[in-house]
């Protein structure tokens, strides 16, 4: 199966093509085909995982050079190593659950089939990203994932907020992608190849200068910052909740945002090569996690809370990976790599479940606002328990999967006091806000009577995936039990295998933290012994700051978006002015030129033509003078010329003439002409006019 593992990615692509071109008008068939494809992919992924396990994690690589250029050879290939295998299973599992769920959730939507085609395209991109064996290919799929996420977030594009949200997501992740591109080219040029193996060998052997490694690592991390919604590019994730809930579950909980974490994990060798870069990674992860958790405390939209939770959990993973890099660069052991990857897997399951459950609740009460919910536990017999299971998992309660993975992260942070303190604080906040959500949604008095009355459990297509994911949320983490010899840690590792040891102290401390978080939420929202409003009032400025998401969006809007738009408008005006000016100028010039040509044509060309006619006429007029019709005039003229010629001959022949020119003749001729003109003008009047034709002369 491993040799054909590329099919895992291609089957969803086939589904996309089939639905778009052929099956669009048959909703059931499209959905069925799409689900069939992803389930087959899921089956194949499981087989690949088993085979990889059988190989003891030895990587399998197969590639195809599709064109050989001089400087680099882009290749498409697949790399199946433990990380990849695990990711394949995670992606296909959550993908399958989401697709099955969508049959119920998107029922009645006019673009039902298209939704499935987009989901399939997304799954193709994500699976391709995970399977890639070189940076070139991963970048292609990286972009594809961004594109499909844009399509899916903006699925209900008639809503202005959705249209804006998908734009925001795309642009923000694009900024990160730019950094990623710079980083990957840096490392590829120095390594001479895009291939992971080639690059990592070069980095590990120290052939690339550390400055470059650091810079490249940070740039590559930019991509992760964008895709995984880390600070400062986190602003798109909450707004991405405008998309349908299955989309949020698939993309923004389980898979796409995990791509950033996957990238960091994949490129760990580069990060290990630079302690500074890894520290940057870890710090950003921590900052993000803390910030997002704090915002999540006060949000009222069920999906927003979950979005910030995702952001925060991603920060956890990034931080863990960064700490691993930092520690390893400095020569220490760290469970960070294993912790990050482990949490990636478990988080996909319980966050997916949380989102799907939230979708179920929204489907029931038709609102996102938790302030309008309440007391839904009795009404939603499957949704509520699964949701609570997931919440327990994310809070990190023994023995659910979340407990084990979060614990490893705490262990990774334990060597760095500052990180440890914050990590525990974040764990507390996580537990608190998750259970605030639970209590406000499912327990207490229903705040909106009408909505409560209409609420009902979701159809089977929606609840079955919930159950399945709940199952995974409980048990999937057990592969990473710290005392297992051949557990997760020995399977997914970097460098040398890490044998986890159970740090009981940490486990107890983190459990206490989690339980206290839940307890506080219980007190505030279930028992109502501490009033939430009074707390909010006491810390009003802090509350406002948190409620408004630290004003990040406003800041970006003022600092970046507005100036960019103003600049764009200015450029447009300049451009339109110049270009319009040019065009109009060309037109004006053409008009002027044509006017000039017309003038030329009229005066000079026509003038020449008319002029030649005029010349002929005037010449003819001159010639006409001779054509008097009077015989005597003709005779006179003949005589005149005879005289002149004779004189000329005589004069030029005679030896008396001094100069060569016959002066006398010329003078005579001129004199004759002069006299002729004179006589005609003066002598005409009295002599000519008196005698008319009939007179007897």
């Amino acid at each position, binding site marked *: 199966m491993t040799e054909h593992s590329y099919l895992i990615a291609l089957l969803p692509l086939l589904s996309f093509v089939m639905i778009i071109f052929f099956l669009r008008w048959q909703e059931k068939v499209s959905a069925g085909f799409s689900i069939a494809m992803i389930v087959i992919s899921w089956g194949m992924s499981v087989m690949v995982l088993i085979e990889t396990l059988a190989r003891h994690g030895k990587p399998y690589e197969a590639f195809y050079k599709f064109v050989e250029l001089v400087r680099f050879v882009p290749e498409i290939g697949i790399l199946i190593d433990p990380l990849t295998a695990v990711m394949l299973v995670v992606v296909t599992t959550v993908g399958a659950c989401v697709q099955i769920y969508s049959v119920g959730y998107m029922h009645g939507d006019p673009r039902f089939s298209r939704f499935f085609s987009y989901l399939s395209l997304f799954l193709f991109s994500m699976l391709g990203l995970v399977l890639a064996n070189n940076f070139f290919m991963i970048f292609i799929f990286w972009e594809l994932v961004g594109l499909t996420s844009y399509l899916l977030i903006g699925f209900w594009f008639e809503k202005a907020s959705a249209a804006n949200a998908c734009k925001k997501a795309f642009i923000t992740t694009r900024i990160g992608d730019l950094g990623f591109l710079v980083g990957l080219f840096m490392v590829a040029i120095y390594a001479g190849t895009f291939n992971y193996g080639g690059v990592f060998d070069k980095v590990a052997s120290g052939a690339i200068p550390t400055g470059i490694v650091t810079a490249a690592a940070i740039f590559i991390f930019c991509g992760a910052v964008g895709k995984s919604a880390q600070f400062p590019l986190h602003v798109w994730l909450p707004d991405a909740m405008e998309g349908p809930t299955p989309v949020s579950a698939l993309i923004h909980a389980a898979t796409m945002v995990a791509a950033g974490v996957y990238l960091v994990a994949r490129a760990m060798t580069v990060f290990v090569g630079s302690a500074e870069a890894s520290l940057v990674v870890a710090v950003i992860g921590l900052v993000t996690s803390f910030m997002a958790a704090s915002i999540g405390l006060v949000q009222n939209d069920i999906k927003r809370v979950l979005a910030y939770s995702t952001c925060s959990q991603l920060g956890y993973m990034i931080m863990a990976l960064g700490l691993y890099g930092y520690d390893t660069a400095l020569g220490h052991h760290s469970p960070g790599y294993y912790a990050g990857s482990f949490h990636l897997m478990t988080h996909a399951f319980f966050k997916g479940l949380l989102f799907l459950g939230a979708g179920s609740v929204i489907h029931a009460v038709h609102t996102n606002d938790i302030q309008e919910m309440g007391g839904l536990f009795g009404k939603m017999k499957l949704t509520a328990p699964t949701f609570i299971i997931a919440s327990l998992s994310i809070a990190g309660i023994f023995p659910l999967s979340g407990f084990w993975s979060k614990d490893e992260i705490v262990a990774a942070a334990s060597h760095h006091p500052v990180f440890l303190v914050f990590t525990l604080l974040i764990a507390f906040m996580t537990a608190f806000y998750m259970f605030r959500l639970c209590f406000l949604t499912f327990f207490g008095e229903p705040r909106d009577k009408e909505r409560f009355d209409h609420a009902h459990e979701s159809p089977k297509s929606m609840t079955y995936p919930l159950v399945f994911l709940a199952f995974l949320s409980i048990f999937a983490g057990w592969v990473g039990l710290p005392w297992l010899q051949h557990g997760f840690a020995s399977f997914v590792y970097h460098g040398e295998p890490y044998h986890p040891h159970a740090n009981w102290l940490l486990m107890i401390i983190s459990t206490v933290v989690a339980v206290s978080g839940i307890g506080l939420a219980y007190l505030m929202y279930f028992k109502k012994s501490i009033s939430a409003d009074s707390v909010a009032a006491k810390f009003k400025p802090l509350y406002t700051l948190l409620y408004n998401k630290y004003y990040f969006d406003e800041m970006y809007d003022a600092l970046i978006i507005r100036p960019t738009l103003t600049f764009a408008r200015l450029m447009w005006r300049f451009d339109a002015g110049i270009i319009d000016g040019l065009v109009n100028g060309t037109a004006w010039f053409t008009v002027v030129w044509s006017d000039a040509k017309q003038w030329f044509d009229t005066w000079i060309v026509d003038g020449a033509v008319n002029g030649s006619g005029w010349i002929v006429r005037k010449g003819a007029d001159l010639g006409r003078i001779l054509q008097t019709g009077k015989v005597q005039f003709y005779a*006179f003229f003949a005589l005149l010329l005879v*005289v002149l010629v004779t004189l000329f001959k005589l004069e030029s022949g005679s030896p008396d003439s001094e100069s060569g020119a016959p002066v006398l003749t010329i003078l005579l001729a001129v004199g*004759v002409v002069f006299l*002729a003109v004179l006589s005609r003008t003066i*002598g005409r009047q*009295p*002599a000519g006019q008196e005698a008319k034709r009939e*007179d*007897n*002369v």
Partner: protein
Amino acid sequence: MPATEPGVVFWILAVVILVSGFLVVTLRNIFHCALCLILCLFAVAGIYVLLNAEFLAAAQVLIYVGAVAILIVFTVMLTTDLASRSLVQHNENATIAFVVCALFAIGVPWLITTTGVWIPPKGELPADNVGTIGKYLMTDFMLPFEVVSVLLLAALIGAIVLARKEHS
């Protein structure tokens, strides 16, 4: 240049010729012009006599004066309203033509006298002018003589044809 200068007779005749000639071309009344023409022709006959061309002089008087000039007078009578007012006789070319002709009249004699080359005569004039002319007419100039007669015939017929009454 011959040593002999023409005598007084020549000068008188010359004056008559020139004056009457000038009058011919200048007078307004055609009839007066015709009369001056006759006078002129007579004087020319006199010149012929001076030049030892007696027959020619006689012929001149007979033909020119007796026939041609009379014919001209006839035509004048026939075609002119003599009682009408006399008008200007010269057209618009008068001035310039006068100049050119004056030039001619002055220039040619000047040329002759300045550039003329005197060729002495080859022989003597025969004493019997008429007889000699008659002899030559019958021998050397036979052809022109006959042709001229044909010509006269043609002129005669032509004139009759031209001038006969039109048949309407």
